């Protein structure tokens, strides 16, 4: 053991800066979690009075809190599914394009929205999706009545899901395209000799070899199961769609952060972290069992 450490000492030294950064920015703040069990007063700092689980009770007793959990899970689930399926399909399609120039151009184009913040995107979306916006004008051509994409509670979650996938799928596409280039061309040549057509090649070579990447991306995204996209929803929602569009983060923002109620905000943050931690552990276990894939 020590011998091995000694042999790899150069690597361990190189690790030190990273370890220190992680320690300072990810582990030291754990200390601050205590304020979720306090009645925090900025002036008293960490010496604020202890109140036990009161902050958690306060949040969970809110009659509207449960629906925000449901909304969060609903939207993040479909965002996650779409966030895996859409980029995989798009990467596969793009990979079939023969001309490198066109391929690169499309890759860049779909990646671009990723770099715009939701504050800017929301302004554009509100215009596009308004009753007199271009989407409704287009629907009008087919005689469909104007749809209130942002004001109708039954449609709002899907507006969020679709626009979020649209904005984010470029990133996944780039990752999967990279994974595709690492597949040994020899395998395809062998398959062609065996008489496999494009579809069979995709089914029996590309997808199985892409599976580890897909599993990795899914496991990573599972840690976000309780983040349904604060930036996006906060900039697009309104009281008329709270029933289906209010998520944990936006609710807590209105409950606590807006009024500088740090204890409540921290309590919910802790709750979310615990759930996310369980989700990651669970997905790691499942990935190992079902797909036989281990990240570590």
């Amino acid at each position, binding site marked *: 053991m020590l011998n091995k*450490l000694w042999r790899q000492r150069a690597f361990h030294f190189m690790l030190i800066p990273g370890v220190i950064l992680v320690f300072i920015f990810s582990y030291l703040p754990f200390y601050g979690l205590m304020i979720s069990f306090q009645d925090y007063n900025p002036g008293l700092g960490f010496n604020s009075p202890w109140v036990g689980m009161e902050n958690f009770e306060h949040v969970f007793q809110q009659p509207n809190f449960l629906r925000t959990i449901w909304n969060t899970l609903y939207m993040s689930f479909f965002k996650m599914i779409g966030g895996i399926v859409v980029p995989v399909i798009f990467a596969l399609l793009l990979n079939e394009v023969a001309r490198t120039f066109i391929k690169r151009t499309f890759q860049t184009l779909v990646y671009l929205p990723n770099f715009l913040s939701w504050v800017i995107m929301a302004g554009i979306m509100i215009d596009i999706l308004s009753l007199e916006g271009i989407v409704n004008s287009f629907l009008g051509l087919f005689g469909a009545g104007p749809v209130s994409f942002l004001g109708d509670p039954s449609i709002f979650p899907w507006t969020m899901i679709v626009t979020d996938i649209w904005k984010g799928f470029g990133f996944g596409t780039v990752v999967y395209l990279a994974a595709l280039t690492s597949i040994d061309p020899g395998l395809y040549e062998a398959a062609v000799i065996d008489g496999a057509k494009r579809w069979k090649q995709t089914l029996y070579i590309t997808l199985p070899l892409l599976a580890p990447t897909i599993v990795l991306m899914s496991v990573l995204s599972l840690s976000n199961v309780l983040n349904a996209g604060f930036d996006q929803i906060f900039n697009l929602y309104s009281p*008329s769609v709270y*029933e289906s569009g209010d998520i944990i983060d936006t609710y807590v923002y209105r*409950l606590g952060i807006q009024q500088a109620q740090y204890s409540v905000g921290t309590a919910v943050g802790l709750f979310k972290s615990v759930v996310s931690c369980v989700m990651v552990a669970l997905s790691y276990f499942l990935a190992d069992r079902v797909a036989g894939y281990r990240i570590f």
Partner: protein
Amino acid sequence: MNRKLVSILLSLSLVLALLSACGDSANTSKTAGSGEEPKQATNEKGEVDYAFGSYEEPVTLHTVRAEYASAQFPNGDNMTKNIWTRAYKERFNIDVVTDWVTDEYDTKLNLAISSKKLPDVFHVNPTQLQQLIKADMIMDLTEVFDKYASDRVKSYMEADRSSYESGMKDGKLYGIPQMHWGIIDQPDYIWIRNDWKEELGLPDPTTTEDIKNIALKFKEAYGGFGIAADQTLDYLNLLAIGWGAHPDMWIPGEDGKLVYGTVQPEMKAALADWAEWYKLGIIDPEFAIKDFSAMNAGVVSGKSGIQPYYQWWGYNPGVDVVTNLGKDAIFYPYNIPTVDGKPATHSIFFANGVYTVVNKNCKNPEAAIKLLNFYASMLDEGSQKEDPETLSAFLDNDIAHVTGAFKIINPETDYTQFEHVSEALKTNDTSKFTTSGMWQKYNNSVEFKKNGTPAATGDFLQQGSPKPAYGLAKSVLDNEQYIKTALWGAPPEVLVKYGSTLDDILTEGFTKIIMGAESIDYFDKVVENWRTAGGNDVTEAVNEMYGQPAN
């Protein structure tokens, strides 16, 4: 093995060094407590001039500031270095050092409070004031204020004693309220586009039914939608007093206990009518997803001719309306009409939102008071004491608003100002003007009448038009057609703890009723939800803090 140990030690010492560095910087801001009374200039009689005397030795005050984006500084000046800070140095020998400027003031200040890096003098909101008092971080200013505050500043406190008392705890003054322009700016109006109204020959509205008819006629003749509103319902709610409802107010109920105005039966009546209006298409069909700027964009683009709004309509969106649609398209304010045509009872809220406080460790708390005296004297007496250019440099282009913690306003400013301005506009006699504000309102009113300059719209509609907003407000105040909310000061902690979620329940439910997704009977269910979600707790807390003792 050795190497490993060394590396662990090294990384540990690094962490320790970092930690101690943090500790150091936190401590440096703590300076010694108050010392001797510093030497100050004397007046003609040889007495120490406490209120305005300059220091012999320079005194340094650290402060922090919120960005004030609409201030237009002359070249080279900014929030931290401007005519005010130079005057502090020249006239009082006080160096005001700004530690930071931010447009997220409350958040940044909360961080500063928790890391104990407070400046000497700063301004806080009511919640922060209570927290700081509890944490024993700010100074008891009772004596300093008594000794150093000018008579003028003291008279402000007398003029609005309840705001003054809201800065106290157990009879000791901790936060000096920065006050407000006066409750004359609080009554609300229904603003109606004048060229449309005249073209159709419509009478002034006196009942809620009249609003409906005007809106219908406007829609018929000019398209668009009648009444502008937004998703918070804040603007639609301004009309509620027409039905005798007082949303957001805490008022005595039938049994004398305080109740929340938004959940009273009068509100139900208002909602029932609004639901009908929405169905008729005279409330913006997209109000539920529009925010403040989207609502105003509808008015500026000429889609709406009726807007429930505050007295400052002329500043925003008024300026844009005149720029975009021309001088004739201005809206005039009308008293909010009622169901039965009798005058409405207006809602008056607690107006003081900001307090100036002094760090417990500040050496020269009196310096802060001197600067407040200076501010008050510039605003109230500036036009007698300074030459016009100097005064303009201090006040115009919103430079008057950049002083941050060193700001205090005469709570009778607007009332007196309006009296003088409207009198002068009638008689053309400006000799009685005492403040630069009066000159500004007067000049802009004349300017708008003559040239229709968009930038002058605000002052014109507030004070100088044939139907000035303040004219209506003045009669509301003079005839006492208003009630004050009982929550006169900082909100109880429980209320803060619910954030906006309790009001959200109501807004969400009311939106559904107005849009017709639920019938009017849903109101009772919404109120019930509100009660169980915490409305009952909050009502109790408000009663405990502000209610009359049980008889």
